[in-house]
């Protein structure tokens, strides 16, 4: 009897005697989600819908596809995502193992390591930009002092410029992903490693048979989430190269601004809309995973 009563309580929200209160709870619930729904509809859904409507002129797509810079940006974006995200997460996975080692000085290093993520992009990316200045930047100064040769013209070369944008992107967002993967790593039971150690497993085997299986799902989630964030990374390219030289380092995130500057709003919208179908499969996958 007492057992039945407890069972009733634990499924309380659906219990019959409280129906009156339940409806009052539901009313409160509705009221409390209203502010968010308002924010979502007014500042996310309406802008997106309006943007789609602005970009519904087929003429602007024709103009967009005729623009070489657009295709260059698509290629750049794919390189940026493919290299940037995978390299970043692979390093983050390795570093999460390093930061999981219990040492006081690793904890201190961890505090410094987080700085690139915590401080604003503008000063730090511009600091990179000045380091890479071909005439008076510190990198070419040091290079000259060592070799008596002029260093490369870093940001005036589209390949180097894009590479450096990826480097800046990784510098900025690596701490965040390392932190997430570190949390995942620390959640693995220590007993598994102890048991493996008793069985004489090497550290590579421990990673292969304990760490990786436990982290694989999280790693995949991080990869896809990071793709979305990276796709929206405006600063790493815009503040470092400004899309130059000759607009050859633009990515889709900065291309819209370029068109706005040229007063071609319809092209800007079209360039954004073109990226959306690429993202749909990733989107469905993520929704399934995150809303569990």
């Amino acid at each position: 009897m007492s057992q039945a009563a407890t069972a009733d309580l634990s499924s309380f929200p659906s219990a019959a005697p409280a129906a009156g209160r339940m409806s009052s709870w539901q009313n409160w619930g509705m009221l409390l989600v209203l502010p968010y729904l308002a924010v979502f509809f007014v500042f996310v859904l309406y802008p997106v819908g309006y943007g789609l409507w602005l970009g519904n002129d087929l003429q602007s797509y024709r103009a967009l596809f005729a623009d070489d810079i657009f295709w260059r940006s698509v290629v750049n974006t794919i390189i940026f995502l493919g290299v940037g995200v995978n390299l970043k997460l692979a390093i983050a996975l390795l570093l999460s193992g390093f930061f999981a080692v219990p040492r006081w000085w690793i904890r201190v290093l961890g505090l410094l390591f987080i700085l690139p993520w915590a401080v604003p992009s503008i000063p730090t990316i511009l600091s990179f930009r000045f380091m890479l200045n071909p005439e008076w930047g510190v990198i070419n100064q040091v290079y000259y002092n060592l070799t008596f040769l002029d260093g490369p013209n870093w940001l005036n070369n589209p390949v180097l410029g894009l590479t450096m944008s990826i480097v800046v992107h990784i510098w900025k967002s690596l701490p965040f992903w390392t932190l997430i993967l570190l949390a995942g790593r620390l959640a693995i039971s220590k007993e598994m490693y102890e048991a493996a150690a008793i069985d004489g497993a090497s550290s590579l085997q421990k990673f292969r048979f304990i760490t990786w299986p436990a982290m694989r799902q999280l790693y995949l989630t991080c990869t896809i989430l990071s793709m979305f964030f990276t796709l929206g990374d405006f600063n790493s390219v815009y503040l470092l190269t400004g899309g130059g030289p000759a607009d050859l380092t633009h990515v889709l995130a900065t291309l819209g601004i370029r068109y706005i500057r040229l007063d071609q709003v319809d092209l800007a919208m079209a360039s954004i809309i073109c990226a959306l179908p690429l993202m749909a499969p990733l989107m469905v996958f993520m929704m399934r995973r995150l809303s569990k």
Partner: protein
Amino acid sequence: MRKFFTEARLLLVAIPVFLWTMIPLYHLMLFAISPRDTAFKGKLWPDDPTFRNFELVLQQKHYYLNNFWHQMWNSLVIALAVGFITLFVATAAAFAISRLRVRGGRLIMNLALLTYFVPAAFLALPMYKAMAVYGLLNTQWALIFAMVAIATPYAIWVLKQAGDKLPIELDEAAIIDGATAPQLFRFIFLPLMAPSMVAVGTYALLLAWNEYLYAFLLLSRDIDTTLAVALGAFLSADDSPWELLMTAGLIYALPPAAIYYAFRRYMAADLTSGSVKS
């Protein structure tokens, strides 16, 4: 001996990580303490370090920095507003979804997550056009609401995950005692959720303080813009006073770093806890 090798291997990772992290930051600081013409000659420390740049910036003695303090104030007001509004909106929604089990809660979570599938830089232009329709363009509300819209989904997600972890028995006991929904919120939810709320509020605040693209699009008058936009404006000329830019940038970067360290305990635990569940 083996122990020595372990430590040596750790150091072999630690040194590159340290250099990688600190060199751009150190370079930023070096610029700020170097006199104008000697800006930097590949030296590890300037011959005659000076605080002159800080004086010039703090006294607004340059064309680009005429509104330095005003813009700093704008950054602060906007960041605080975004922090508080995000916290209010997200806490209310998370309470309703996690504890009151409002109908359609799952759908709302999905809608919230949908926001992140439009990358921030892509949402910026439609947001810009929509703000013009609302008549908010070039007002600070435009930036505040834009940042709230971007910060709330993650905030709700973190708060809902944390809310789900509170023992259901607490609510049950309160219900037996005849507590209403507001009382449940006030006496059970709020006190227990305080650490997560600090984390989420700090997250939104830092996000708004650090934002460049939206500020640059949505605000145009010098007197309204944030420090980020003011710093970006230096790039409009090829011979801007870079050492002043770096100095102002350093000052701009200090508050978020300090805030991060002050609330680090909450941030690390709460903002990443959701990830471990999966």
